[in-house]
């Protein structure tokens, strides 16, 4: 039915933008009336104009590219370590027990607390930032890998035993595929934290990147530039998450628990 179909389209695409649109209009209206001071919170139209300028001059892309590149490096490093460590730990209860105290103390440390320490150890350039990001990525990946592997269905393992499968076959055909949904959750949480960590690191010490853009704009009292930076962080984070969900959906076609909610 036509009405049903249009209803679906409204539901799916229109509904999520209604509230943001209303908020933006309200914001613009209040700015026009002078309720909001433009030095504190400029109108959306002013921020839009600044955004346009920064895109045209390529300034925004320069900062974005720097931040993204740091995230890619740090995320790759952190998630690889998380994956390997998770595999090792989940295979040996003894190893997990011996690391219990170390991980217990290290894990709750906020990423930002590492920034000054790492600058002292590794200098102010790229290495310290990439390390901060990889620490942030490492933990969620590690925990989810362990949880995913530990929750492998014993009945499937029994089948593999009956069929006389080798350890590596069991790992690659039974354990890892069944842990994959959990591993993906870890990667998604990880990249979210990586994206937050890079901004944090750049706010403290950097000469390029979105975090630096915001920090520098604050010194110059450019509220509009700051807000362009903030918005850019949010939008990029959303895009990264959507991308990862698409990959997940394609890879985990078999997972019936994965609904079509992107």
């Amino acid at each position, binding site marked *: 039915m036509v009405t049903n179909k249009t209803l679906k389209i409204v539901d799916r695409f229109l509904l999520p933008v209604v509230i943001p649109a209303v908020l933006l209009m309200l914001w613009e209206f209040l700015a026009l009336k002078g309720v909001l001071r433009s030095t504190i919170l400029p109108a959306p139209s002013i921020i839009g104009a600044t955004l346009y300028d920064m895109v045209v001059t390529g300034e925004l892309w320069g900062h974005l590219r720097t931040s993204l590149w740091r995230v890619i490096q740090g995320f790759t490093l952190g998630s690889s370590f998380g994956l390997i460590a998770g595999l090792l730990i989940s295979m040996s209860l003894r190893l997990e027990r011996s690391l219990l105290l170390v991980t217990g103390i290290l894990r709750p440390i906020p990423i930002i607390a590492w920034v000054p320490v790492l600058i002292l150890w590794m200098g102010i350039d790229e290495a310290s930032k990439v390390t901060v990001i990889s620490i942030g990525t490492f933990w969620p990946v590690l925990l989810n890998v362990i949880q995913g592997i530990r929750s492998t269905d014993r*009945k*499937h393992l*029994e*089948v593999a*035993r*009956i*069929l*006389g*499968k*080798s350890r590596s*076959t069991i790992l690659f*055909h*039974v354990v890892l*595929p*069944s842990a*994959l949904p959990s591993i993906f959750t870890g990667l998604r949480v990880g990249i979210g934290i990586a994206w937050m960590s890079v901004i944090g690191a750049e706010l403290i010490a950097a000469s390029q990147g979105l975090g630096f853009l915001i920090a520098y704009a604050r010194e110059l009292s450019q509220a509009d530039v700051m807000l362009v930076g903030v918005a850019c962080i949010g939008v990029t984070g959303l895009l990264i998450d959507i991308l990862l969900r698409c990959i997940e959906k394609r890879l*985990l*076609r*078999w*997972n*019936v628990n994965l609904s079509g909610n992107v």
Partner: protein
Amino acid sequence: MTTTLDHVLRVQNVTKRFELDSGSVVALDNISLDVQPGEFVSIVGASGCGKSTLLRLIMGLESCTAGNIELGEINISKPSVDRGMVFQESRLLPWKTVTENIAFGIPKSHHKKEHNAIVQQHVELVGLQGFEQALPHQLSGGMQQRVSIARALVGRPDVLLLDEPFGALDALTRIQMQQEVLRIWQRERKTMILVTHDIDEAIYLGDRVIVMSERPGTIRNVIQITLARPRDRSSSEFMSYRREIFQEFFGEQKKTFVFEI
């Protein structure tokens, strides 16, 4: 291919005790049973009588507390590809397609080149042509169980162990699957041991029906079924076998409805 003809399965004085926190439980007490190659043996008993434990011991998933089990000349101590097993749940790997699941049953020693042909042959054996690329969650319960049977058979075991394989299926599908298993057994001539709580199913399929008593599990009686196949469930001979087996249970205690009719 190995010949299956001289591989007698011998269960000799097997006792299985489980150690629990609350003490030890004797699941099986001094069970002895010989199964001839190509024979179809049904084992019936109330739930908790240890019949599944017996299958797990034959599979080598658990070890006997006393006694031993031999297949041919070999003492069974761990799982091996000469025995296949089908469970009540299909236990298919949800991330593998029908063909991939069946191929998972092929032992490593096989030549890679033959894989596709063998898998296809088994897809046809269980009548799943057209569903080769389907994932388990896209199949009905009966179809999933067919895949599971194909996976157990593709490694060419001498003995196929069936642990209440149709217990979770609806009545109509169950009868269909019994006919299917009968057809496969007649074609492949494997030794098959079926554990069930469905007396009709046991009589319909078995050359012999072994009736077990519970706690501790012992063999109460062995009934030879001499009817020609395919068997007519409503014939008077079938009914009299049925009555005989019912009596085995009723004779024990006044626990009337412990099994499915």
